């Protein structure tokens, strides 16, 4: 879209918005935001050519704190909005950001279809096992029994495993990040953006305000990097590592090449397209 040629490489600060983040002090989302800045600057994107889509939740406020184009949609619907954007702007990088409630409760149906379509976006789920914005109810990634202020009786159901879910539905880039490993996370996001197809990065991003169990420390103790020799083209290995509960592995589990949503749209168009009015006149002819 843009004709401006950038010579100098952009810095992290070039992606910062005017609005200061409204998150609680200590929120994991700060780290994710910084990783996003870093990943964008790694790609040296012009902010005006980046679109960040989100749902509703603390984490979904992220677009407001950047200088990119953004769409803060409604709860659970970031995926279809992103698909609509990509359908008409297939060359503009689209990041989707949001919470675990947004992605795995109200939004999980759309997530599956976005994955199935291999929509070429990078989706970072900021996973804190709770609904932060509505004051701390447990979310689908909460372990059974997790008790919070708003769910004192404890989560009633077992947690979903987002990685298995993504793998089972054909996701072509599956990763897990951690807010307190900003460099690695930035790297995953940068690679997710570079990936041709749906890049899914489930990211631990603790909510110190409402989740006193799954803290930074908790995740630091519970996680481990995927082995250095791990082969992210091995689907079965990915399934197995994704199923592990102890440790929880960080890194890129799986990557594959498949036709994308955008490929389909491109291929669906005739070589030569016509003006709207020509097409309509032709159809009139056929109807008379």
């Amino acid at each position, binding site marked *: *879209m843009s004709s401006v040629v950038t010579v100098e490489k952009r810095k992290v600060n070039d992606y910062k918005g005017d609005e200061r983040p409204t998150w609680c002090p200590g929120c994991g989302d700060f780290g994710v935001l910084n990783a996003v800045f870093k990943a964008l600057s790694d790609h040296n994107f012009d902010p005006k050519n980046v679109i960040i889509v989100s749902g509703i939740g603390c984490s979904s406020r992220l677009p407001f704190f950047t200088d990119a184009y953004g769409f803060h949609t409604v709860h659970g619907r970031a995926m279809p909005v992103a*698909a609509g*954007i990509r359908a008409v702007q297939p060359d503009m990088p689209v990041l989707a950001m949001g919470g675990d409630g947004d992605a795995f409760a109200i939004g999980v149906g759309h997530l599956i279809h976005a994955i199935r379509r291999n929509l070429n976006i990078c989706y970072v789920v900021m996973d804190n096992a709770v609904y932060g914005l509505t004051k701390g109810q447990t979310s689908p990634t909460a372990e059974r029994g997790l008790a919070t202020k708003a769910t004192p009786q404890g989560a009633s159901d077992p947690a979903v495993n987002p990685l298995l879910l993504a793998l089972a539905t054909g996701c072509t880039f599956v990763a897990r990040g951690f807010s307190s490993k900003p460099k690695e996370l930035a790297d995953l996001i940068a690679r997710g953006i570079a990936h041709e197809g749906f890049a899914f990065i489930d990211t631990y991003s603790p909510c110190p305000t409402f989740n006193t169990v799954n803290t930074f420390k908790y995740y630091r103790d519970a996680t481990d990097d995927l082995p250095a020799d791990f082969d992210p083209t091995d689907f079965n290995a990915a399934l197995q590592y994704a199923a592990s509960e102890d440790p929880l592995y960080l890194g890129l589990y799986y990557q594959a090449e498949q036709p994308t949503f955008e490929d389909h749209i491109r291929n669906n168009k005739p070589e030569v397209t016509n003006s709207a009015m020509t097409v309509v006149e032709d159809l009139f002819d056929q109807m008379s």
Partner: protein
Amino acid sequence: MTRNDLVIRVAGEAGEGIVSTGQLLTQAALRGGFHVLTYSQPPSEIKGGHAFYQIRLSADRSYSKGDSVDILLAFNQEAYDRNAAETKDDGLLVYDPSEVTPSADSHFVQVEFPLNDIAKNQLKFPIAKNVVAVGALAELFDLPTKHLDSLIEERWLRKGEAVVQKNLDALRAGIDYVIEHVPQRDRFALYPEKSHAGEIVVSGSEAIGLGAIAAGCSFMAGYPITPASDIKEFLEIHLPKTGGHALQAEDELAAIGMVLGASYAGSKAMTATSGPGFSLMIEMLGLAAMAELPCVIVDAQRAGPSTGMPTRHEQGDLYQAAFAGHGECPRIVLAPTSVRDCFYQTVNAFNLAEKYQTPVVLLGDTLLNVRSESVPRPILNEVKVVDRLLFSENGNGVGNEVGRMNGEYNRYVLTENGVSPMSIPGQEGGQYIATGLEHNEEGLHRYDEATHTIMTQKRFRKLERAAHEAPEGDRFGDPEAEIGILTWGSTVGSVIEVIRQAEQEGLKLDMLAPRMLMPLPDHEIRPFVESKRVIIIPEVNYVGQFANMITSQYPRDYVRINIFGGMPFRVDWLLEKIREEVAQYV
């Protein structure tokens, strides 16, 4: 004796070629210069079950499906049993005696027509039964055979000369049989006065699809639902030709979500659904209103509530279109009044959506969307297309002195008419966050009293302006008449015919059907309401949704006429009802 109006109904088992028989006749009649208007009733069963396809042929333009049937072609006993009551006493019944036994006291002119026998034994081509029937019917209303010949050629050419010839033979067999066995057939002959030959035959759904393309729509997402799926399927095939794209989403929530994404990204975008899907879109209708994203939602109404009667007609979604959405949620609602109007109102819907950056709901219905009609071919270079107002990087919105304030682009800058220039991703300096949160001019979320007050006013100011630019309402009848009929949508067809007939009988009526139903165009409705002694509001729903809306803005007494059986108004019934009502006011 000549006639200029004839209703033919082909009835039988669904899947038995009812529709193809009907379509062949329709196109032949069009080429013969008739006006054609079809009406069909798909079966309630999934396959099989009773179905019919009805064609009204007329010299003058007709506006409704016709109250009763002149010629009934009954393929089987059930078809006879179900449709005999709607056939005129002096109508013609054509039936295959091997399948149908008419009742003993039938008044019809009856023509035994051994369709199966002819097809199977004479032609040795059993599936040609329908073509035989087409030949017979065409001969009955004296349709020049050349049109049929060429249609058959066009249709079967791909299958080879031999197949074409077999079908031409079948056609001829039908014609010959009628010539031989139906002596008084000139009573059904039709003579076109005006030629409708240059017209096109379209369904309402197709007209909407064409209107969308003409208006510059480049993205459509939908989810299958009766009676709106056709729009999606039409656009899936034809939109790519312009470089656009249409697709089937995983559900209606996704469909409208994609539409808003596409709109944000700079496209003119739409979805099409029916009641149940429309209900699922309500949350995001609000998002469109709040984020001020242009979009068009077609709601092809069907009988409700809930899953209701998917193949039946009702004007039951007006409330939903006008009032659904939590919070104060501005939107525009348009209702085309005919198949032809579906084209033009779709164009208007896109134009208004873009101009006022607001969702526009277009209310079709089973009657309009499904039926095919011959309509004058729209003259495309008279079609005005409105494009998005974009802020320009050197400080102004296009043709507008606003849009960039002190070097900053403010997406929601306050303007006199409430419309603020948009930007499109990629546009330098145009970055903003579209959000469903209340926000200031810059688009940043703010919760203070002043912001919410001012921004609510801004959003509604747009609607107030839009009302002044409402597409002109549909008028028919005698402007001086003391008795007015206020109506909307597809009911207009029946009302026009009522007015015509009433006039012949000396009763003067005047109709106004606003095409914009939300906001109501005051400049049209007020003078009408204030100038009529009696105002009648007929609509196909229980509570009188339009009547209530009109009353709340124009308090006075109105006579309401409501039916809610899943069928449109019969002209004779409605005229009688109006007579009764009017009598009380004399």
